């Protein structure tokens, strides 16, 4: 095909049953000018080497499964154009995560952190569906909307130095999610979540690297969420001294 150009892919490979440590493997394949990195991986998987393992699904940057390191930066591979790179592209599994196989990383650690922030509406009394919806003004929606856009692609975890150094740290996506519920006008669980935020590995572990927001493909800006949460958790903590009762809502 004449519109195809050759590119070299240096891909991290790891099979726990065979390899002591991850190694790299090089593939030279013809690519089309409009391809994303993921298209190249799929081409390799389909036509060159069926043993390559990677996760992907929606290929439209919303399912969040194809996050990998591309030339050292965490990227959604379905959204990353090959034309932005030179003749050699390095693809590896996300940093800061244990690697299960090739480009597939361990997500269970994240799932625990995710659950720890209680990402659901907490209310003393829930309404029955027959009573209709809660009123929420567009401004109240706007207050948390941005933080609800996270697709759990894990790029922020791969970029954050604190995640790699402090294993207890809840991390950007989980905190942004908890903060999203704290800001939701329908929710009453902020005291509970702030407690989690104040614990070891909570919001105060963040050291302002701002990397999460730099790499976020969905402009969630987790750094903003974490630092807002720091402030609100302090306010909440101070309030708990003034009126201890206000903690139970």
């Amino acid at each position, binding site marked *: 095909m004449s519109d195809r150009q050759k590119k070299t892919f240096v891909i991290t490979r790891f099979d726990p049953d065979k390899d002591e440590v991850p190694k790299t493997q090089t593939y030279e394949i013809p690519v089309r000018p409009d391809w994303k990195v993921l298209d190249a991986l799929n081409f390799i998987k389909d036509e060159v080497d069926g043993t390559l393992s990677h996760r992907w699904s929606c290929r439209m940057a919303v399912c969040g499964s194809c996050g990998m390191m591309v030339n050292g930066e965490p990227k959604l591979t379905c959204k990353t154009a090959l034309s932005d790179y030179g003749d050699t592209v390095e693809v590896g599994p996300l940093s*800061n995560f244990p690697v*299960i196989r090739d480009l597939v990383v361990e997500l269970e650690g994240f799932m625990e952190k995710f659950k720890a922030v209680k990402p659901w509406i907490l209310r003393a009394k829930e309404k029955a569906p027959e009573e209709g919806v809660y009123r929420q003004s567009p401004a109240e929606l706007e207050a948390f909307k941005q933080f609800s856009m996270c697709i759990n692609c894990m790029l922020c975890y791969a970029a954050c*130095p604190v995640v790699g150094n402090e294993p207890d740290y809840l991390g950007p996506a989980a905190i942004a999610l908890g903060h999203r519920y704290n800001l939701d006008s329908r929710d009453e669980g902020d005291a509970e979540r702030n407690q989690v935020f104040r614990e070891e590995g909570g919001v105060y572990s963040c050291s302002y690297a*701002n990397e999460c927001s730099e790499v976020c493909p969905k402009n969630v800006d987790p750094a903003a969420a974490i630092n807002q949460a720091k402030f609100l958790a302090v306010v909440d903590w101070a309030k708990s001294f003034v009126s201890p009762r206000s903690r139970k809502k």
Partner: protein
Amino acid sequence: MARLADPRAMSPSRPGRTRTAPPVMPPLFPARGRYRSYMLFGACCVFFLLSSLLFLRVVDALAAGPEAWDDLLRQFRHPLYLAYNVAALAGFVFTARRFFFQLFAKSQPPRIGPLPRPPLAVLPPLLGAAWVAATALIFCILWGAFP
């Protein structure tokens, strides 16, 4: 090869069901890319510590009397002191740029209790204005123009 991360980073509380390769830190960490600026930001903590101690000396000298005060100002003329202070000034300005002007605005929650936050767009100019005002005030006071 990048530095290894903490072996427990992003691991589940019970180990996974198969052997995994250990997590590594982001490949450019800490010396390259955006991390360099971040590490510089971290290193600026030295200026916060030392300048704080320097101001402790200033207070001490003021309490000790005119000779001590003049002696301190004379010491400050020493090239090492001057070099440090110029570096510290740069460090504080760098920190201000990174923290105060880039991160601070978006770190403000939409509302604190009953108080709504001003729109995000106006916060950086407001901060800039506050910075100019504070700096000008200190200049005037120490210049002798006020009070």
